[in-house]
């Protein structure tokens, strides 16, 4: 009895939605697998799982999350490029590590920047150069002067492009910067708080230490200023023409048909801008969702490659 009632209700609902559904008829042929290019527990993983849950809720599709860690997303994208372009396999990565790999050893990778159909960006990581709050310098130029006067400085980084920016600055200003490799942003903050580093990069984790008065910002590494600290100018504004913009983004194997691409892009956009994702991104990164859409994402990847190559050239001795 209950079953037949449910059936009738479903039928009625289906009939009601039919005219509206005629525009976006595309349905995935089976469950969608969302592959995460990083291990479980990191920010990419947390974002990916939340998007999957939000998509399931709003579309009724089954979305399965799989972790495929390795090489900052390269292992995942290397296998994603071989999947069928039927919209049932998507991958989440971060632009900067992907672009770095394409720029430095692109000929060895099984994919190119145009090997994918790009669907969405999720958020831009608020990358910035920070220093202990009691340091006697407040801008990149003052930091360079301080470093020259004190026989060099130690700067913490946890990804190649951060090193490249500071090396490019060092090359033009001859500041005596030494770059110290770290495993995570948290360890860089530890080094700054412990007094071992004179400056270092933060990608969001640093923000609460600004409120607590332990750290201060010297420059943002993104092209424009960041919402939580509107008074901090970018490297570009300070006369160093370099930027690094790590976007979390979603791609599918190249060759999706237009209907599928539009339906997926819409479902992802709804998920990314949902109330729960906005709250989550605010909690994790102190910022808001930032979906550039399929074309904007593609532009970030394709233009980003030439930006990274230029930065690479500027940082080389």
């Amino acid at each position, binding site marked *: 009895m209950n079953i037949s009632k449910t059936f009738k209700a479903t039928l009625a609902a289906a009939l009601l939605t039919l005219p509206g559904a005629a525009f976006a008829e595309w349905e995935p042929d089976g469950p969608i697998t969302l592959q995460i290019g990083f291990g479980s527990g*990191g920010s990419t993983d*947390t974002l990916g799982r939340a998007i999957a849950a939000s998509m399931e809720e709003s579309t009724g599709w089954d979305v399965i999350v799989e972790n495929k860690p390795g090489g900052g997303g390269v*292992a995942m994208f290397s296998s994603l490029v071989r999947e069928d372009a039927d919209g049932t396999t998507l991958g989440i990565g971060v632009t900067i590590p992907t672009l*770095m790999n394409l720029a430095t050893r692109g000929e060895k990778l099984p994919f190119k920047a145009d090997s994918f159909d790009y669907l969405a960006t999720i958020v831009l990581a608020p990358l910035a150069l920070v220093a202990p709050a009691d340091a006697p310098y407040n801008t990149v130029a003052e930091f360079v002067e301080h470093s020259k006067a004190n026989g060099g400085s130690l700067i913490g980084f946890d990804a190649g492009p951060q090193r490249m920016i500071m090396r490019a600055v060092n090359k033009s200003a001859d500041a005596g910067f030494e770059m110290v490799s770290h*495993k995570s942003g948290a360890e860089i903050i530890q080094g700054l*708080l412990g007094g*071992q580093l004179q400056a270092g990069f933060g990608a969001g984790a640093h923000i609460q230490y600004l409120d607590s008065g332990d750290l201060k910002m010297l420059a943002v590494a993104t092209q424009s200023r960041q919402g939580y600290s509107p008074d901090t100018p970018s490297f570009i504004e300070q006369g160093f023409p370099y930027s690094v913009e790590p976007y979390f983004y979603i791609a599918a194997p190249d060759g999706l048909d237009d209907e599928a691409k539009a339906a997926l892009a819409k479902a992802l956009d709804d998920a990314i801008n949902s109330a729960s994702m906005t709250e989550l991104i605010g909690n994790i990164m102190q910022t808001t969702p930032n979906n550039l859409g399929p074309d904007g994402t593609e532009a970030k990847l394709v233009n980003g490659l030439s930006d990274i190559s230029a930065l690479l050239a500027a940082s080389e001795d």
Partner: protein
Amino acid sequence: MVDFSTILAGLGDAFTLTNLLFVLAGVIVGQFVGAMPGVGPVMTMAIAIPFTFVLNPLPAIGFLVGVNKGGLIGGAIPAILINTPGTPDAAATAIDGYPLTQKGKPLKAMKMALYSSVTGDTFSDLVLITIAAPLAIIALKMGPVEIFALMVFAFSLISGLIGSSVTRGIIATVLGLLLATVGLDPEHSTPRLIFGFFDLYDGFPIASVAIGSLAVSEIFLRLAKMRGEVRPAVNIPRDQTSDQKNVTFTEYWACKYVLLRGALIGTGIGAVPGMGSTAAAFMSYASTKQSAKDPESFGKGDLRGIAATESANSSVAGADFIPLLTLGLPGSASAALLISAFLIQGIQPGPLLFEQQGQLIYGLFGAMMMANLCNFTCGFFGLRLWAKLISAPESVVFSAALILCVVGVYLSTGGTFGVYVMLAFAVFGMFLNALNYPVVIFIIAFFLGPRFELSLGQTATILRGDLMNLTNHPVAILLFLMSAFCVYWLGFRDGKSKRSIEAL
């Protein structure tokens, strides 16, 4: 300092039936997955975190803390019962735990592990609750140079474990370090020794190597030894007296210094981010063995061996919270997962945490206390169940364990590649065993290798290639001197006395 009413309010929040049930559920899940070779608490926490989004902060964190703490005890169970440590943490537990099982006393070994684990855990929780803030400030002063010196010290302590053949021990260490260099180098991110496999960019997956060479190789060995008859995996004599099944208070109390040393080592290592519980377990085991009057009884079923390992690796768990809660810095994979759980709940672990969320933190401390109690109770009753389970025919026990290893590694490494690596390392582990090379030394070297390389690189940059700059790092110098002393007293002296005995 947080005022007293906040503390009481926080504890009051914690001690509710709902929270108790969440903590209890976490502990049960944790003990269960810890005992499954290949699954483990870290992966379980990663899977559980998205589900905690809908819970209130305290039950959510309480559940995860329960999983974490339950896993500490669960991990020792397969190590003791079938010599297949599911995590490198428990590898040192197997050294003395498994011989006791062979003697028909698995319950006694597991009980000792349970008591030691709960003792170490409670000790470090008390340290966390009372003196976390000053300890965190000291730990913060441990920069890359000091961490590097601490790692050298850890290696020198562990060298005492090498055993009869120094040459074989060194070869195993070098093999471990060599295989740890596979993947991107920490300075310039250049891929090394990957032979075209992109899956190796981040190195061999730790889960595959640890489970393959520790657990699966043992399972293969046991399967190979099987004959046509049906035998239980472990023979427990039916007419055991109670002191063969239980740990008496005298036996427990005899280990008091061992337990205290283990808890101190674990708490110290846990408070310094970046070393991890495996190193703590081995350091505690090695120093206990070396300081004993009868080091030759270790490895043959000595309760002190179990006490040393379990108290140390469990006390890391509480101490991991010291940098986590006071500075927002994770000391281990499970602590990093807890940070993301905090973040999902809208709580920023960091310098302002005690100020802004004092009540929640004391609630969390309350939950940790409850978890310890639940751990003890569940463990006490659960151990009988595990002992029963293990008397099943070995063909069932070992094939089930093998399936669990495959599934666990498949899940945690995200595909079949990790499983192939695991099988390759299982064969590798069997070879090491057959040729009498110490597998545990290989594992600890592999495990510490990447961090060792990173700290070496950092140290070289910070010292600007000039050893004289070490004078700015007195703590590091002290640790280097202690290492030299250790190698001399533990390594050479021991080797000499053994050789002179052999010569007689």
